[in-house]
């Protein structure tokens, strides 16, 4: 009997064990190993038994040698205008004010644009090449531009969803449908969590609520302990973390001790291993009660770090638009710093959601503000991770559900073209760290940014590559649900080998 079979035998708790067995036996060839590693490691954490030989299991059971161990996903919900940030289009600027050729427009659908009178909208931005690789950035992101040589800029992303919520589901779950696990759930399912006292999947938000809401961090058909745990921007770090008023720390500990002994008495009576699991979860909850406040307490961070991220920076004098909600300029900075702290503590997947970029109008006023909000913190994050030697194993993704059109938005009642509509046919997204070969621009959109001209990348391709960086084969990381083996990449997905360092 192998180590993990023995371990599995031990975990004979009624429901959990049966479910586990079903996963394992139901997996097609080659799938079992990753899932098993997840089970054992997930248990190791949930059971508070970090001494399990999970690390060695993980390295032997991964499909490939893993490059990344953590992911920080900077989800710019609402969809930033890549045409004003990452993908310069001089030809578009030349054609500013001209209608799009009819044969292009005829077959496409728009969310808001009136096709008949739509005209192209060039970007007024100033562009410069940065780094040794000569990567283009507009003047909206001057600080990020200094990290060009660490960044893989993908200019040939495309999606088939042009409404926010379906698009966000496609990016998060691999398909624009409900009930599926999100990327962070799959990673924790496949690899387990390394953290002993924090959840393996943490969600941080800035500004207003996103279109997708809780569906962007759900675990779908996977058990709910693979769902993202929302850390909050106000009050306690995690819901229900603080003891009820009047319950001192000592009284709380004393209560938990009594609870544990009473639960043990019940185990002796009914022999249900699920009770042991509950006892361990109460202990993990107890550890979270100190670990989570410790995590969000930035007192131990140096002044220079706090300043680098801009955690306490003053508001921009021209703060405006949908990105300027609930002190987003500070929470975004703080969330970036928290992401680093979470990664340091072994958290597998950190999702930072900033729903701010849906600029159908006032693009030239709102976009610079949003860029100001994010530019400093993301740059600080990349530098900080690099300085601490974490960037090699931490994948940073910055992107959204789609991009924005090269056409000006002429929605009814709006005289001037001041914004851009949704655009799923070609857009940009960037990644860094975690085994990504930085300093390269991948793919290209056509000369006006309408469609992909070279090396198209579907969301499923992005997801397949992301899993590959973690040593997982997207075709093998599956879960049987209602008679079908589901995977993150739905029925698609090609690993972009050239992205790997």
């Amino acid at each position, binding site marked *: 009997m192998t180590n993990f079979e023995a371990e599995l035998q031990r975990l*004979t708790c*009624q*429901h959990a*064990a*049966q479910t586990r*067995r079903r996963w394992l036996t139901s997996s097609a060839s080659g799938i079992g190993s990753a899932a098993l590693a997840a089970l054992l490691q997930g248990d190791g954490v*949930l059971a508070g038994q970090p001494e399990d030989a999970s690390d060695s299991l993980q390295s032997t059971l991964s499909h490939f040698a893993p490059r990344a161990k953590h992911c920080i996903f900077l989800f710019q919900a609402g969809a930033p205008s890549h045409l004003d940030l990452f993908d310069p289009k001089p030809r578009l600027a030349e054609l500013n004010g001209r209608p799009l050729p009819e044969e292009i427009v005829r077959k496409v*659908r728009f*969310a808001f644009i009136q096709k008949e009178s739509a005209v192209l909208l060039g970007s007024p931005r100033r562009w410069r090449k940065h780094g040794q690789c000569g990567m283009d950035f507009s003047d909206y992101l001057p600080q990020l531009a200094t990290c060009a040589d660490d960044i893989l800029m993908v200019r040939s992303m495309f999606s088939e969803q*042009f409404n*926010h*919520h379906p698009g966000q589901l496609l990016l998060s779950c691999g398909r624009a449908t*409900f*009930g599926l696990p999100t990327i962070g759930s799959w990673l924790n399912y496949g690899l387990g969590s390394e953290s002993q006292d924090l*959840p393996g999947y943490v969600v941080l938000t800035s500004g*207003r*609520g*996103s*279109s*997708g*809401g*809780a*569906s962007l961090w759900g675990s779908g058909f996977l058990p*709910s*302990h693979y769902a993202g745990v929302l850390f909050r921007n*106000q009050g306690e770090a995690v*819901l*229900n973390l603080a*003891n*009820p008023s*009047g*319950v*001192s720390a*000592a*009284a709380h500990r*004393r*209560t938990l001790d*009594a*609870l544990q002994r*009473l*639960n043990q*008495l019940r185990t002796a*009576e*009914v022999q*249900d*291993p*699920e*009770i042991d*699991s*509950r*006892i361990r*979860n109460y202990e*993990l909850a107890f550890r979270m009660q100190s670990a989570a406040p410790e995590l969000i307490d930035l007192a131990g961070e140096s002044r220079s770090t706090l300043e680098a991220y801009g955690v306490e920076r003053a508001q921009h004098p021209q703060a405006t638009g949908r990105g300027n909600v609930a002190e987003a300029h500070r929470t975004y900075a703080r969330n970036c710093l928290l992401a680093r702290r979470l990664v340091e503590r072994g958290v597998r997947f950190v999702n930072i959601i900033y*729903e701010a970029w849906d600029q159908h109008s006032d693009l030239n006023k709102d976009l610079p503000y949003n860029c100001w909000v994010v530019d400093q913190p993301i740059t600080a994050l990349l530098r900080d991770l690099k300085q601490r030697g974490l960037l090699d194993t931490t994948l940073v993704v910055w992107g959204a559900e789609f991009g924005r059109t090269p056409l000006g938005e002429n929605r009814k009642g709006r005289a001037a073209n001041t914004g851009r509509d*949704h655009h799923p046919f070609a857009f940009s997204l960037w990644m860094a760290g975690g085994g990504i070969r930085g300093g390269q621009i991948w793919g290209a959109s056509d000369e006006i940014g309408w469609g992909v001209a070279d090396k198209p990348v579907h969301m*499923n391709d992005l997801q397949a590559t992301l899993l590959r960086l973690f040593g997982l084969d997207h075709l093998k990381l599956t879960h049987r649900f*209602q*008679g*079908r083996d589901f995977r993150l990449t739905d029925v698609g997905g*090609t690993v972009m080998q050239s992205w790997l360092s």
Partner: protein
Amino acid sequence: MLFQKIVAGILCLSLAAECAAMVCQPDEPKQSSVASPADDQQLANAVRDLLQARCWSCHGAGRREAGLRLDERDLILNGGDSGLAVVPGQPDASRLLQRVRSVSADEQMPPEGERLSRQQIQLLTDWLQRGLPWPKSVLPSAAALHWAYQPVSRQQIPPSPSVDAAEWSRNEIDLFVAEKLSARGIRPSPPASRETLIRRASLDLIGLLPTPEQVQQFVSDTSADAWPQVVDRLLASPHFGERWGRHWLDLARYADSDGYEKDNARPDAWRYRDWVIDAINRDLPFDQFTVQQLAGDLLPEAEPLQKLATAFHRQTLTNTEGGTDQEEFRVEACFDRTETTGQVWLGLTVGCARCHSHKYEQLTQREYYQLFSVFNNADEATATVPTAAADVAAWPPLQLAFESRRNELERELAAAGESRIAEFEDWQRQQRELLQSQQVPAELPKEIQAILQLDPARRKAAQQQSLRQFWYRQQADLKPLAARLDEHLKTQPAKPEITVRVLHQRSQSPRRTFVLHRGEFLNPLTDLEVTPAAPGILPPLTSRSADRLPDRLDFARWLVASDNPLSPRVAVNHIWAHLFGRGLVRTLGDFGVRGEAPTHPELLDWLAARFAGIAVAESSPVSGATQPWSRKQLIRLILLSAAWQQSSCHRGDLQTVDPENRLLARQNRLRAEGEIVRDISLQAAGLLSDRVGGPSVFPPLPAGIAELSYAGNFKWVESSGADRYRRGMYTFFKRTSPHPSLTAFDCPDANLTCLERGISNTPLQALVTLNNEVFAECAAAFAGRLGKSDQLTTEGRIELAFQLCLGRSPAMSELNELRQLQQDLTQLALAENVSVADANAGAWRGLCRTLLNLDEFITRE
């Protein structure tokens, strides 16, 4: 994507091939020198052999290139992703023949190996000409032989395998269970204690704890009737409909909001929820329950409540995000209706066939769209229906009282005004003159002006009345009386009606249904039109009138017809799963070939036949006569079985022989669902409101949660009074930001139908029950409840607390542990300079908090 490219490629190739074929044809000899077999069966066999040898490797059950299969006649007729492959009787119009005839390397089929010989092409030509004869002797496919597609069989009740088993068994169910156990040499478990039994039954049937008195009475009543009486009491409880209604609402993906980005509130959603509770409470037979929900609007003389029932399929999501194509999301909702129906009633995952013929099941894409077409002409509409029955009953006297008081006040006013009728006439005259001279008096409302301008003789009575009322209000002496009347008018009782979302059959310009290429709503395959029909593996769907196609009502009736093999099995399995934690078929949503086989196939069929009234089981002294499709009777039957009543203690001897408890040698120990965890905490604390039904409520929600909804467009205005303490199922369910205490305990997100809730065990759950505001409030109220019994000793209070929470007395070890806890918590508080009284009270709160967090408390044993 690769797939799409291939399909697109094939489309182009097909077109090219058609041209090529036209060019080539003149060169092709029309008649081959070698004749095809004259006998249809011989021809069929020859063609099948040819297809097998040259085509099946790509167009067989395995690869299904381009969605095309050539291994069954029906599948050949279905065509592929790019349309029809054959036209019976018209070889030249058949794409299949065009492709094999082609001489272009890019178009020719098969693409590899030798070109088909002239003789082989002639064989195919003749075969197409003669209407695709197909070998008769071929065995049915594995899918067609699958157990779940066979008719529900009448099962003989097995004889008792032993004297012990005969003694153990309580009804027929047990004989089926005992047979399997004894075959493996396993003994069943002893019955659970009476305390456990009544707590288990209460949780299973009404989702609430038994009161200490109910426990006491049952424990002391050892008569044979005691148990059936408990079961009957619970079945008759109004909370039964809540408990089992909630199970159904999981299937119905019920929620109080639209879903998607905007996720607007649906203030009428609760009315359907209450319909479900009521239908289950009055044990509406499952066949009618089904027909009303799927097609209540099509029933003859449909009543408002039958129309309301169709809200089952209005629980689909609505996307009002800016810039959405409404047709896209209408089709999306139809997909959901099709697939939810398949899951809930047929136990089939039909969804795969939305885009391509099902890989494992005998379900083609065409068959999927035949089901889809059942729902394609159901429009989203509204109907006005009565609110709760109680409101409807209460309304007439209220309205009567209102009217009589109104009449009284109006009479008083009229009487007072009577004496001044001349003044009123003068005023009218003056005003009319002013109006005629275009000098509109500023204080005159438009409608009064309009009346004044009418000839007094031609005014309606109501208009004259309005005018008089207006004038009265201007008169100082009449004002108080008029004000009283106005005040009264504001108290008019609301009519007990509500407008609800329902389905309504489209009568004008009905939609045609086509197979949608890859499930894309903009890509109908116009040569693949479909109409409502049943999948080939199931009995045919027929129309109730010969002159038109089957509709939604025919379909609903077909679902619960006596020859449908799936619906009764699936329904029985759901009920079983709620009473054992697992179904007899463990894959609740998958009765197909990839699902698990039933652990007790004979028992499943016996129960299904009995449930559906297929085999009228002889009434037995134990289980009594049966009413077809009665949910309550089926539940009663199961609860009276020895199998259900077994202890749920794990047994060492089962670890190796039956670790998953498939053979039911014991009951299962199950954590309560999210709503129930909260409900029983409130109940133990004495806080729970027992009101059934009504609009959804807003109990405390942690700060920052509602704000997570899109653009902060949602405000959670906390309910006050008893509404803070309603059962969890009444908590307003906002799809994009559901209540976190519910989701922590695996409540479904209501975006898709949920056949089986997870039962996870997580640290976040511990944090909810330890620290959440509501649970802390419960601990405090619970302690207060114990404190009211001044007479009780510490031990007495602990005993009472135990009875209230767990329905049993504490063991000595438990008593000691809690007594020590109480003392230690007191001491800890005293050490922090808390007053003795406060320290003591705090210690009791701590003790209650401990009890409410016990594994046993939130577990149905």
